[in-house]
């Protein structure tokens, strides 16, 4: 069954949807959308560095993402720049540096595939790596979920009552970097943030609690993958952007259909 490239694409896409949805909910709650962009751009630089140095690409992506996150924290703590300015610097700086490094690496890197994803090229071994990554990410996320939610709702309460907010936030950023590494093949560097955010805000309207929202976001993300792959196959359009168009379509649909005749919960 895994021999069919369409089946492999579907499984890979659904894995990314399952990962990106709960993380994306946290990104939305904590207003970290721009940070997601920064991480995915840093991932591009990671691929370039990994290729140039001939080390494992997921490892290189993770290292560069972590380095960028650490630089962000250091600048935010000791500098006089606002967070969005620092993120603008890091996001575009690492994107530009990545593009330059890829040019230096010559013909060995398929730039188009990196930017927009190459879901139909997912191999069997890619799937195993993605599946392993997904299990690690979901288990870790589950173990810090309550602390992370407490830190999101009130950093003060979390700190005073020993819910270790800083630990939860650092682990969350690592998980986000890992997810970016896993998702690049599916939607590409430029559209990863969309897979984090759009399913989450699609689910928002129907959710009465944070956990419900995360589960509904997985459904919305999975729907977007199916729609996008189908559209891409039928209309011969690029898969990554088609998936994001599918996510947007689901978001619009969720806004239009009547639901309980009332405004969103809470």
């Amino acid at each position, binding site marked *: 069954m895994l021999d069919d490239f369409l089946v492999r694409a579907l499984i890979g896409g659904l894995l990314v949807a399952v990962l990106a949805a709960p993380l994306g909910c946290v990104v*939305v709650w904590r207003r970290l959308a721009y940070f997601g962009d920064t991480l995915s751009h840093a991932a591009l630089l990671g691929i370039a560095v990994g290729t140039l140095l001939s080390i494992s690409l997921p490892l290189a992506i993770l290292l560069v993402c972590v380095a960028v996150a650490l630089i962000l924290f250091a600048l935010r703590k000791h500098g006089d720049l606002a967070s969005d300015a620092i993120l603008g610097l890091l996001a575009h700086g690492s994107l530009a540096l990545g593009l330059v490094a890829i040019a230096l690496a010559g013909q060995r890197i398929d730039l188009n595939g990196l930017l927009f994803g190459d879901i139909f090229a997912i191999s069997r071994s890619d799937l195993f790596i993605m599946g392993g990554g997904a299990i690690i990410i979901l288990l870790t996320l589950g173990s810090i979920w*309550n602390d992370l939610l407490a830190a999101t*709702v009130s950093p003060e309460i979390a700190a005073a009552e020993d819910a270790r907010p800083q630990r939860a936030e650092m682990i969350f950023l690592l998980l986000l970097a890992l997810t970016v590494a896993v998702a690049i093949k599916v939607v590409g560097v430029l559209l990863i943030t969309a897979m984090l955010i759009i399913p989450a805000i699609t689910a*928002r309207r129907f959710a009465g*609690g944070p956990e419900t929202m995360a589960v509904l976001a997985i459904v919305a993300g999975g729907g977007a993958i199916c729609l996008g792959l189908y559209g891409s196959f039928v209309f011969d359009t690029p898969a990554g952007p088609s998936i994001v168009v599918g996510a947007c379509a689901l978001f619009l649909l969720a806004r239009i259909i009547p639901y309980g005749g009332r405004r969103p*919960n809470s």
Partner: protein
Amino acid sequence: MLDLPQHSPRRSAVGREPRALARMRRAGLYANGRWLVRGIDLAIAPGEIVTLVGPNGSGKSTTVKLLLGLERPSEGQVARARDLRVGYVPQRLAIDSNLPLKVARFMRLTRALSHSDMVAALDETGVAHLTEAPMRALSGGEMQRVLIARALSLKPQLLVLDEPAQGVDMAGAIAIYDLIAAARQRLGCGVLLISHDLHLVMAQTDRVLCLNGHVCCEGTPEAVSEMPAYRTLFGGEAPSGLAVYRHQHDHRHLPDGRVLHSDGTVTQTCDTHECSHHHHDHDCAHHHADDQQAGKVR
């Protein structure tokens, strides 16, 4: 539970008062080129209510952060009882509109809580009917009651409240202070209150610390309000009669608008029992005998 950490090299310096839940000696915090607070001496024992007052920027929050161990002191010592259970009521709670959060889920924010315990905790602060309400739909007073219910549901040894009566009207403030007093009585917890309202300090406060980067003065509410340092710090703002608020506690208002009197009767209004100060309910049993009332408000 009251042992101070044995492994602490500072034990000899802080361990002399065995009853203290948390204590700081000559503690100070230096950050961004200045001393935020310096030379703070503060200890809280179980069952004690301590209020920090001071103008904006006087270091009230910094002092609490030091005491709870959220900041490391640049000088001096801070120690807490081992595994101290803290219940924290923040000054405000801004929940992102994209985060769906009902009261029931918020109650379980930092600790698991059975449904019956949750309802009991909310009932105690009079908001059990809001269990399924979204947090963002709560009014200021309801929010305060939910925040306090959550903190109390942890059965804390130390209850810390940052301006719990802020944004609540006078009657609401009185009701909240009554809740805190009742919780202290029931749980025997230490209570640390932060207040920037210089005129109204909870009547049951055992000790007031006046902060302005350091401890200006300290003592019972009555004593502090008469101290020159307090009058200098809060000078023209604090007419002597209003510096400390005490109130008679003989009835409370139920969520449905009726009134529960301390003798157990329930009426539609509080008029019938007006000023029946012969009845003190148990929450006020520890009040000092002198009923001299400064700025009495019912």
